C-alpha cells in the first residue's frame, strides 16, 4: 500500500472525496481473483499491490492472484477456467488479447462471476466494466505533446510499442497518429516507423537500436510501454545517440530514475498503477453485491479514492496521467 499512498499524494486534484464506506454488506464469502497479463513484471506487481489492498478494504473474504508467466494471447484462458470452476465471485483481468479470453469469460459469467477488465480491455461484450488508467486519448496526447516539446516541434519520430496486438497500445497509437495528422502544431513532425519490442527487454533494446540505424534523421522515440521505454533509454544512454535523440512515453519512475538523472530522458508520463488495481477491486465488489450493473451512469464508492462513475461502454476512468521529470521524480516510489 506504500505505492498506493505515494500515488495518491501525487494525484493532486483528482480525489473527489474520501468516503471510506467499503462496498455492500459484510457477507464474507465473496472472493476476487486478479489475472494480470503476466506475472513477474514490475509494473504488474504495482498494479496488483493496489488491487490486493483494495480487495481487502472492499471486504472480499479471499483475494487471489494467478496468471501466466508469459503474456501470450491464449495463456490466460486456463486460469479463467480454473477460476470458473472454483466459483470465484469476481474476476479482474488485464486481457492479453481482447477476444481470445472471450469464450472463457462468458463461461465464467454463466457460472455467476462478475468480470472486471483493467489495464487492457477485453472485447466489451465479455466484461461488466473496464477500469481504464486514464482516458485513452489523454494518454496519447500527453505523449505527443512531450515528444513535440523535446524535439522542438519538428523532425522524424518513431514509436516502439509492446506486442503488436496489445489493445491499449494500439488504441493510443491510433490517437497519436490522428493527433499528429490533425493538429497543425505538429505538422512538421513525421511518424516514420512503428516497431514492437514485445515487452521483452532484449527485443525492445534491439528494436531501438535498429531504429537508429534505419532512420539516421530520427529525432525522437515514443515508447508507450514501461519495458520498451526503459530498454530504449538503456540503449540511448550507452550509445552516441544519448542527448541527440529524445525519448518519452510511459515508464515507471523507479526504472527511469537513472536515465532522467543522466539526462537521457527529460520527461515521461504514467498514471499511478496501484490505483488501477484498487479501483478495480471496488468495482468488482459493487458488481458482486448487485449495487451496480456496469451500465453507463452507474456509480460506486472506490474506498479512499471516492465515488467513481461508469462512463460510456462501461469504462471507468481512474485519473489523469502524471508527467515525471528531474524535478519531481524523486517524490515517487513505484
Amino acid at each position, binding site marked *: 500500500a506504500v505505492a498506493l499512498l505515494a500515488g495518491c499524494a501525487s494525484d493532486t486534484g483528482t480525489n473527489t472525496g474520501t468516503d471510506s464506506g467499503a462496498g455492500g454488506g459484510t457477507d464474507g464469502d465473496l472472493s476476487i481473483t486478479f489475472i494480470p497479463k503476466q*506475472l513477474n513484471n514490475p509494473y504488474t506487481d504495482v498494479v496488483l499491490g493496489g488491487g490486493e489492498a483494495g480487495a481487502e478494504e472492499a471486504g472480499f473474504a479471499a483475494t*487471489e492472484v*494467478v496468471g*501466466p*508467466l*508469459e503474456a*501470450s*494471447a*491464449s495463456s490466460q*484462458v*486456463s*486460469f479463467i*477456467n*480454473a477460476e*470458473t*470452476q*472454483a*466459483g470465484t465471485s469476481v474476476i479482474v483481468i488485464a486481457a492479453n*488479447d*481482447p*477476444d*481470445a*479470453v*472471450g*469464450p472463457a469469460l462468458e*463461461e465464467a459469467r454463466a457460472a455467476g462471476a462478475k468480470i472486471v477488465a483493467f489495464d487492457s480491455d477485453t*472485447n466489451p461484450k465479455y466484461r461488466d466494466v473496464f477500469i481504464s488508467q486514464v482516458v485513452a486519448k489523454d494518454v496519447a496526447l500527453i505523449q505527443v505533446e512531450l515528444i513535440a516539446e523535446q524535439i522542438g516541434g519538428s523532425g522524424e519520430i518513431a514509436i516502439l510499442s509492446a*506486442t*503488436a*496486438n496489445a489493445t491499449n497500445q494500439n488504441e493510443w497509437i491510433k490517437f497519436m497518429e490522428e493527433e499528429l495528422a490533425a493538429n497543425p502544431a505538429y505538422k512538421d513532425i513525421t511518424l516514420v516507423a512503428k516497431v*514492437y519490442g514485445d515487452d521483452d527487454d532484449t527485443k525492445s533494446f534491439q528494436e531501438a537500436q535498429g531504429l537508429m540505424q534505419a532512420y539516421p534523421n530520427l529525432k525522437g522515440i515514443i515508447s508507450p510501454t514501461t519495458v520498451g521505454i526503459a530498454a530504449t533509454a538503456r540503449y540511448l544512454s550507452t550509445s552516441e545517440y544519448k542527448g541527440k535523440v529524445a525519448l518519452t512515453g510511459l515508464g515507471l519512475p523507479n526504472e527511469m530514475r537513472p536515465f532522467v538523472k543522466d539526462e537521457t530522458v527529460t520527461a515521461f508520463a504514467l498514471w499511478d498503477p496501484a490505483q488501477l488495481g484498487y479501483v478495480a477491486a471496488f468495482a468488482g465488489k459493487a458488481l458482486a453485491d448487485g449495487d451496480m450493473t456496469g451500465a453507463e451512469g452507474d456509480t460506486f464508492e472506490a474506498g479512499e479514492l471516492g465515488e467513481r462513475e461508469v462512463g460510456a461502454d462501461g469504462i471507468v476512468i481512474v485519473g489523469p496521467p502524471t508527467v515525471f521529470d528531474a524535478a519531481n521524480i524523486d517524490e515517487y516510489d513505484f
Partner: protein
Amino acid sequence: MSEPSSPITRSSPLPPADKISSLDTRLIDTTKTLTTEPKGRTGAARILLGRDAIMIYLLLAFVLYASIAIPRFASPVTVGFLLLDVIPVLLIAMPMTLVIITGEIDLSVASIAGLTSALMGVLWASGLDIGLVLAISLFAGVVAGAFNGFLIAVVGLPSLAVTIGTLALYRGLALVVIGDNAVANFPPGLTAFFTSKIGGTGIPTVMIGVVAVALFFGVLLHLTPFGRGLYAIGFSKEAATFVGIRVARAKFWLYVGTGSVSALAGIYWTLRYSSARSDNASGLELTVIAAVLLGGVSIFGGKGSIPGVIAGVLLIGTINFSLRLERISDVVLIIVTGSLLIASVVAPSVFEALQRWRHGRRMHKTLPQVPASGATSATAPGVQERK
C-alpha cells in the same frame, strides 16, 4: 581339463523331429552356454509392467489423488476444461510420436499451427467461405509438412537442423501473412462448437475428432506393416533399407502427417480462442516433445507407443490443471515438468543398474569357482555366505 557339468549350463533341446524341415535334418548343434535364467516376461506381464503401463498407472494414481485431495477436482467441468487445454498438445503428439520413433524430430509444429492460424485469419477477413478457409489452411499445413519431409527424407538433411530452420521460417511467414493484426470475428456457431461439450459429460465435442486422430496414429504405428517399419528405421536405417522398407518415403509421409495435424491444431487453437494471430501456439513444440518423451518414446528412436504418449500428455495436463485449481504458481508446474522429464529417463537407467548389480551378486553366489585361483579377489566372502 575335465568337463564339469555345471549347474547353470544346459544344452538346448533339439527341435522335435516332426518340426524339422528337410533342409536342416543334418544341422549340427552348436549349443551355447545358456543359463536356466527365467525367460523373458510373457506377453501379459510385459504389457502390464511395461513402460506405457507405468505411465498409465501414474496418471491414474495422480487423478485419484487429485480427486480426493483437491476440492472441486472430481467433476465433469474439470474434464471439459482439462481436455480443451490439452487437445493441441495431444493432437500434435500423435504424429510426433511416430516421427521420434523413426529417430527424427520436428520442431516446426508450433510454427505450422501459427501459420495456419494466421492464414485462417487473413482468408476469413478477406471474405472467403469458412469451409474454403478451413480447407486452404489445412492444405497449407500439408504443404509445410511436405516441405520439411522433402528436405529431410529426400535431400537427406538432419531433421533437428532443418526444423529449427522451418520453425523460424513458418513463424516468419505467419507474421508476413497477418502481420500485427488479429482476426476475431469467426462465425459464432463454429467457435461455440469448438468449446461445446457432449451432453453432461463435460467432454468437449471436438474430442471425437481428436480420438479419431489418436486411433488413426495408434493403429498405424502398432498394427500395420508401415508401423513395424518405423521401429526398424528408428533402430537402423540401413538394416531397414535391406528388408525393403522405403525409408525416405515413410519419413516424408510422417512429416506430411505432423504438418497436417499441426494445421488441425492451429485451426482448433484459432477457433477455440476465436483469435487468429501470428504468435498463436508459439513455444508449443517443446511442450509437445516433453510430453512425448515423458510418454516413454526414446529420443534415439525405435522405442515408444501411442498409449504411453497419451498418458504422458494427460499426466502433464492433469498436473497443470490441478495446480491451477489450487492456485499454485506455474513456476511449480515448470519445475515439475522438467523433473518428471528427467526422472522418466533417469529412472529406467537407475533401475537397470540396480538389476545389473543384483544379478552380479547372484552370479557370484551361483557360479562354480575355479579351484585354487578362482575364488580369490573378486568374490567377497560375505556375498557367498548369504545364500
